[in-house]
């Protein structure tokens, strides 16, 4: 299984490659990718350097152009596709059907991967993308149980990449408009979720409050660990109870599922987190490299080491991890 790691900038890309990533993925500095953060992502020059660095070590580089071209910005997205193709990336990670069609016609030789934002959750959906745009691989949304992944893997016409570690989107990716409902900006349109420009922190007599465009997302008592106000991870009141009504602040960690994912023929495991620091990427990549090497050495006897799990937990949101939807009872 290939280890695919996030590269939010050149130092992160280099660290990921050094720590054993088989492939890294990056985006350009605009709304064409789903991690549009200030100070993040690549200029043409940096991308060239990064691709060169990775290729010299025999590693692959994917370019994420996985937001949805807006009515007034089609050329911005096609330029990104042309630019990535010119740079010699090993694959384009795309979500929009129009853009997939464009890439298929204009750059047929550059591999196309379906982004998780393309929301393909069945082998029939994968077949649609395969037949229309010849996708080579698809990244599966984080909504399927391991049994559902198994069923899908049996009949998939393309390679499968699954999320292994990092922030957990619990909505079917690509079909979540919660962020634009509160802020006007969404993953699909702007490549952002719960964007920082709309976040406000405030010390109040009731505690530390986090707000998103003035909507109270959470309130923390003295000594409670405060997290970024991603709108689906706050505490809300539903029918008289105040709790994490949608999801707790927690990260996905599928390390213990590795033998099963391998057996299902999953081609790649993906680490989320282009917005994370080079140090974070380096630590996560290092642990997963060790785990994958151990798995290949003796698949039948694989056990996640305590030090790996502890190391990953430390890097997780709320210092806790979950198997998410892979585990049926999470639902």
């Amino acid at each position, binding site marked *: 299984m290939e280890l695919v790691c996030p590269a939010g900038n050149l130092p992160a890309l280099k660290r990921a490659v050094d720590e054993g990533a088989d492939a890294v993925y990056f985006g350009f500095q605009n709304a064409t990718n789903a991690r549009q953060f200030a100070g993040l992502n690549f200029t043409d020059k940096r991308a060239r350097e990064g691709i060169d660095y990775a290729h010299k070590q025999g590693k692959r580089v994917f370019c994420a152009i996985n937001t*949805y*071209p*807006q*009515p*007034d910005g*089609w050329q911005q997205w096609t330029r990104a596709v042309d630019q990535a193709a010119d740079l010699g990336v090993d694959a384009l990670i795309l979500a*929009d*059907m*129009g*853009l997939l*069609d464009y890439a298929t016609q204009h750059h047929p030789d550059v591999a196309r991967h379906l982004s998780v934002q*393309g*929301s*393909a*959750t*069945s082998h*029939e*959906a994968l*077949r*649609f*993308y395969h037949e*229309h745009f010849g996708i080579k691989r698809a990244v599966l949304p984080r*909504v*399927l*149980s391991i049994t*559902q992944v198994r*069923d899908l893997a049996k009949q998939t016409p393309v390679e499968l990449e699954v999320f292994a570690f990092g922030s957990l989107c*619990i*909505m*079917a990716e690509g*079909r*979540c*408009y919660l962020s*634009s*409902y*509160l*802020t*006007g900006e*969404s993953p*699909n*349109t702007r490549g952002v979720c719960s964007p920082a420009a709309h976040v406000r922190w405030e010390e109040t007599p009731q505690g530390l409050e986090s707000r998103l465009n*003035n*909507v*109270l*997302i*959470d309130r923390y008592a003295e000594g409670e660990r405060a997290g970024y106000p991603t709108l689906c991870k*706050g*505490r*809300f*009141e*539903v*029918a008289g*109870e*105040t709790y994490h*009504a*949608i*999801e707790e602040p927690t990260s996905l960690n599928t390390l213990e599922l590795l033998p099963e994912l391998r057996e299902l023929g999953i081609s790649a495991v993906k680490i989320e987190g282009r917005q994370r620091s080079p140090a974070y990427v380096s630590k996560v990549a290092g642990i997963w490299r060790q785990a994958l090497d151990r798995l290949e050495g003796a698949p039948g006897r694989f056990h996640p080491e305590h030090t790996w799990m502890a190391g990953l937990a430390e890097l997780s949101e709320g210092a806790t991890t979950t198997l998410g939807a892979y585990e049926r*009872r*999470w*639902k």
Partner: protein
Amino acid sequence: MSTPPTLQLSLGPVLFYWTREHYAGFYREAADWPVEIITLGETVCSRRRDMKLDDWLGIGRELTQSGKQVVLASQTLIESEADLRDLRKLCDNGDFIVEANDQSALQRLSNAGLPFVAGAALNLYNPATLDVMKRAGMQRWQAPVEMSRDDLTQLIADCHQTGVSQPCEVFAYGHLPLAWSSRCFTARRHQKPKDRCQFVCQKYPEGLVLRSQESRDVFTLNGIQTLSSACQDLRHELPAMAETGVSVARLSPRAEGMAEVVSAFNQARQGRLPIPDPLTLVDAEICDGYWYGQPGMDNTRTGAN
């Protein structure tokens, strides 16, 4: 003699889980409402089994006799082999056009050479995507819920230029469908696992309100689906919508007061505005922000956000 209205009205699928009697009563009434199109079917959760495909087909045939165009909508989040089997049956129903709400449905319908309505969750944001849909057999399409009037105006104009002239439908009234998860949030509130949810969402014919800790309504939980807490109301925008080239305004069913809502929109599309506000009958805040390129929750008429 009045001139025929330029905009058609459609009744979207019921997003909530009602009882059989509730659906039956609702559509009996709807048969007489001034809407041209009615979309039926369960789009949210495969565990909601009160209504079988045959039940929907039966209602569909009755509505056809009342002169309605009937559409069957597919489930938005397809997860299992069982979901795919149900989807195949829906697509192969033989009577009614299907609203495709995910690419599994697109695959099934386009391969069978069947025409379809392209649903809002397919993310149709640009002419190139709509051209792909047209080639696959699209007859009508829904704009993404988050798209603004300005973007839609440009998109429709560009589509006409590139030869995509299929009619566009806009979500004009109701709680906005904003997200789908494999987790059931209603069952979570009741501390039940999804597999043994005991169909608790049926207790909430208009969903379960999620509020901030300062008692502000934010979202509506509806099983695995998350909706807006406010009701989008674009009644005042119908003339602008028609001018933009929108063909159909979709009204999303609510448990109470829907006849008044339909009547108000029917008046509005004939230019009869302002009218007494029928929405005081239904207890929900109103939003229209998306249409104006603002956060969806905003209400430009009151300036509230």
